[in-house]
C-alpha cells in the first residue's frame, strides 16, 4: 500500500519540484537531470509499457478470434499485420544488410511494407480529413444565428483572400458586399419593401459615384481589398481570440501543475 500510494505521491511531488527548480537554479547537474536524464527515464519506462501494450493487443485480438466474439473477423487482419511486421523486422530481411540496419535499407521487406503499405494507409486517413473538413464547414457555416453568419462571412472572405482570384476582385464588388451586409442587418427595421429597395439601390449608386470620384479604381483603399481584409481578420480578431484562449490554457496548465506538484490532485495515481 505504501508503494502504491505514499511513495507514488512522494515521487510525483519531488520530481515536479525538481523539474521546476531545474529551470531556475543555476546548478548544471540539476539542469542536466531535468533536461536529459528525466526524459530518458520516462522513455525507459515508456519502453517497458510498449511491451505491455503489444501483449495487450495480442491478448485482446487472439481472445476475440478464439471465442468468435462479435466482429472477430477484423481481428484476423490486426493479428496478420502484427505478425507480418514482426517476421520482416526480426526473422526475414530479404537483404544482406546487418540486423537493425535492414529497417532502413531500400531492398528490405520491412522497408517495402513500411513504404508501400503503412505510409499510404496513413496518407489515406489523412486525405480523408479534406472530406471531414467539408462536412464540418457546411454545418458550421449554416446561417442559424448572428454568430454563425459572422463566421460564414469571415470564412468566405478568408477563402477568397487566400486565393489569387481574391486579389482581382474590384473595389466596387467589395463595396456592394459591405452595403448588402449593412442592409441585411437593417432589413427587419424597414417595413416598406419599396423604400428598402430604393435606398439599397441609391446607396450602391452613391458609393459607385463616390468611389469613381475618389479614383478608387486606380488605388483602392485597404478596406475594399479582399486580401487586406483577410490579413486584418487573421492579424486582429483571430489572433486576439486565439491569444485569449492561449492565456486561459497557460493558466489552466499552471493551476493543474500546482495541484499535482503539491499532491492535491492524486486521481492520476488512481487515488
Amino acid at each position: 500500500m505504501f508503494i502504491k500510494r505514499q511513495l507514488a505521491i512522494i515521487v510525483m511531488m519531488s520530481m515536479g519540484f525538481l523539474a521546476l527548480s531545474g529551470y531556475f537554479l543555476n546548478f548544471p547537474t540539476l539542469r542536466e537531470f531535468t533536461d536529459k536524464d528525466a526524459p530518458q527515464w520516462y522513455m525507459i519506462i515508456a519502453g517497458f509499457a510498449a511491451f505491455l501494450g503489444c501483449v495487450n493487443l495480442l491478448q485482446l485480438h487472439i481472445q476475440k478470434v478464439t471465442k468468435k466474439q462479435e466482429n472477430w473477423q477484423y481481428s484476423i487482419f490486426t493479428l496478420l499485420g502484427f505478425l507480418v511486421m514482426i517476421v520482416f523486422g526480426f526473422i526475414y530481411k530479404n537483404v544482406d544488410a546487418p540486423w537493425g540496419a535492414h529497417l532502413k535499407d531500400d531492398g528490405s521487406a520491412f522497408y517495402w511494407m513500411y513504404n508501400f503499405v503503412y505510409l499510404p494507409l496513413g496518407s489515406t486517413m489523412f486525405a480523408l480529413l479534406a472530406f471531414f473538413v467539408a462536412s464540418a464547414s457546411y454545418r458550421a457555416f449554416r446561417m442559424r444565428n448572428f454568430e454563425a453568419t459572422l463566421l460564414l462571412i469571415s470564412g468566405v472572405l478568408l477563402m477568397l483572400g487566400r486565393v489569387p482570384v481574391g486579389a482581382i476582385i474590384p473595389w466596387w464588388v467589395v463595396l456592394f458586399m459591405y452595403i448588402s451586409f449593412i442592409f441585411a442587418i437593417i432589413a427587419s427595421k424597414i417595413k416598406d419593401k419599396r423604400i428598402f429597395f430604393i435606398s439599397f439601390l441609391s446607396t450602391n449608386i452613391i458609393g459607385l459615384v463616390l468611389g469613381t470620384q475618389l479614383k478608387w479604381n486606380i488605388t483602392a483603399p485597404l478596406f475594399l481589398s479582399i486580401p487586406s481584409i483577410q490579413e486584418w481578420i487573421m492579424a486582429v480578431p483571430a489572433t486576439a481570440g486565439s491569444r485569449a484562449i492561449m492565456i486561459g490554457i497557460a493558466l489552466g496548465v499552471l493551476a493543474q501543475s500546482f495541484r499535482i506538484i503539491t499532491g492535491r490532485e492524486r486521481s492520476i495515481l488512481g487515488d
Partner: protein
Amino acid sequence: MNELKQYFYFLIIPLIVIAIYFLNPADIFVNGNELSFVSILISCFMIEYFIQKSKNGEDIYLRPIPAMKAMEEAVGRATEMGSSVLYVPGISGLDEIDTISGVIILGHVAGMTAEYESDLHVPCCVPIVMEAARESCKEAYLKKGRPDLYNDRMVHYVTDDQFAYAAGVNGIMLREKPAAIFYQGKFYAESLILAETGNSVGAIQVAGTGSSSQIPFFVTACDYVLIGEEFYAASAYLSGSPEMIGSIKGQDYVKLLCMLFIGVVFLFSIFNYFEIFTFDMMTLFNINITN
C-alpha cells in the same frame, strides 16, 4: 493573529523569495528567468491563498459549465439506450499535461459508468497511458463499490500511429455505435476525423483539449466543448472538493491580474508611442526584447 499569519504566508514570504532571487547571492539562480519566476511564484501563492480560504469554509461560487453537466447526462443517455460510452484520451503520452488531465477526467467518467452500470470503452494510443487509465478506472469502479463491473479489456491499446489510431477508433465507433463519446486529452489533426465520425453515428459528444488549434474542430463537430482552462478545471470541478474548487478561484484571480497587466502594457505602449515617457517595463525583469 490569523490575519497576521496570512499576511506573513501570502505576502511577506513571496516578497522575501522574490528579493532573494533578484539579489541572486552566490549566483545560485539563472539570470534572465526573473519574469517567469515572479509570475509563477505570484500565481502559485494566489492559488494557495484561495485553497486555504476554501479549506477554512469560505463558500465559493462556481459558474455552471454546460459541458461538465453534460458529462453525466451523456452517460445516463448511454445507459438508457443500452449502448456503451467511448472515452478517447488523446494521442500523447503522460509527459503532456493534457493527457494527465484526460486521465483524471476519465476517473470521474468511469465513476459515472460504474454508477449507471453502462459499458465503458477506452482505446489508448500510448501504452503508458493505457496503464494509467486502467488504474484510474479500476479505482473508480472500486470506489463506487462495483469492482465486479470492471474488466481490463475496457481499457486497451490500439496503436502508436496517429492515423492508424484514428482509423481504429473510427472502426470502434462505427461497429459499436456508442451513445456517448468523450474526447479528453491532447489531439492533433485526427481530432476532426474522430469528431465527425462520432457525429455521424449520432453520439452525444463532449470534448476537451488544450490544443488551441483543435478547439475549432471540436466546437464544430461536438455537442459540448471544454475550452481553454475549463478543460484543466474539469477535474477540480467534478471532484467537488473545497481544496480543488479554491484553486479554480485562485486561477481566476491570476487571470484578473493578467488582464490588469495587459491594460498596463497597453497604456505604456501608448505613452511610448506619443513619447510622453519612454520606459521599457521589461528592464524590470532583466529581459531584453529585440525586434
